[in-house]
């Protein structure tokens, strides 16, 4: 089994209220100068080999379902264990 990771992040121009709340909490805990944006990580277990075609397919799936490209960007990569 191979693993492909899809990272989804809110676009820079989209306000990220969750990241902002976490940033505020870090400041209150005394961690200075840390700004957080919060996204999602999907770990996709792939049956069989991860070929280029398979990656294209997963990228397609990410664009269709895992991310909403109106508000989010995504990145697909093979997870080297």
């Amino acid at each position, binding site marked *: 089994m191979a693993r492909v990771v899809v990272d989804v992040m809110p676009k820079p121009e989209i*306000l990220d*209220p969750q990241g902002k709340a976490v940033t505020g909490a870090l400041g209150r805990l005394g961690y200075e100068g840390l700004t957080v944006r919060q996204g999602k990580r999907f770990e996709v277990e792939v049956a069989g080999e991860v070929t280029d075609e398979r990656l294209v397919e997963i990228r397609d799936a990410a664009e269709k*379902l*895992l991310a*909403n490209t*109106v*508000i989010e960007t995504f990145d697909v990569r093979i997870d080297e264990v």
Partner: protein
Amino acid sequence: MAPKIGVVTFPGSLDDHDALRAVRIGGAEPVSLWHGSDSLNGVDAVILPGGFSYGDYLRCGAIARFAPVMEHVIQAAGQGMPVLGICNGFQVLCEAHLLPGALIRNERQAFICRDQRLRVESVDTTWTSAFAKDQEITIVLKNGEGRYVADVDTLARLEGEGRVVFRYLDNPNGSLNDIAGICNERGNVVGLMPHPEHNVESLTSPSLDGQPFFASVLDFLAAKV
């Protein structure tokens, strides 16, 4: 015969029964539609109700958007059938790209539940023709992810084409341009975050401002026949 208005039930829909009830009070025949159904059962209009379809997992509306019945809703919408998305239904319409933009978490992270004042910006839709332009109304609002966002070009297009249908009078959630509801180019698909189906009876609501939604679509369907 009264026109039939379908209300889709997704796993996690909450306000489907209120919507069915509002349809009945409005004078149409309510028809329950199942998310897994392969047909719209001959309805004349469709409502996607509020709730938390699929637990709002992934993103609000993102999974419901791929329900089998949605294929038929998208097709019918393209042919001009009136479709109204309320709250979660609005989110589903955006995920399905029947309406542009997206709904994200409220600016201040809080779930908002209140009687919300709105201004009707467009009466040129199948769901708002019974209102007066610029009429100020009060409709129940209750959501955690109701902040409307879209890129600059999309916003300019919506404004330019008069497709902002409802605007908040005191923006509760940081929605861009105070947008509470929008429509598609043709005006047959409308989505809004507030819940008109809760404002149809004096016993349970402070205003009856939800009634014109149903009067509008009935006018439209009557004129069509």
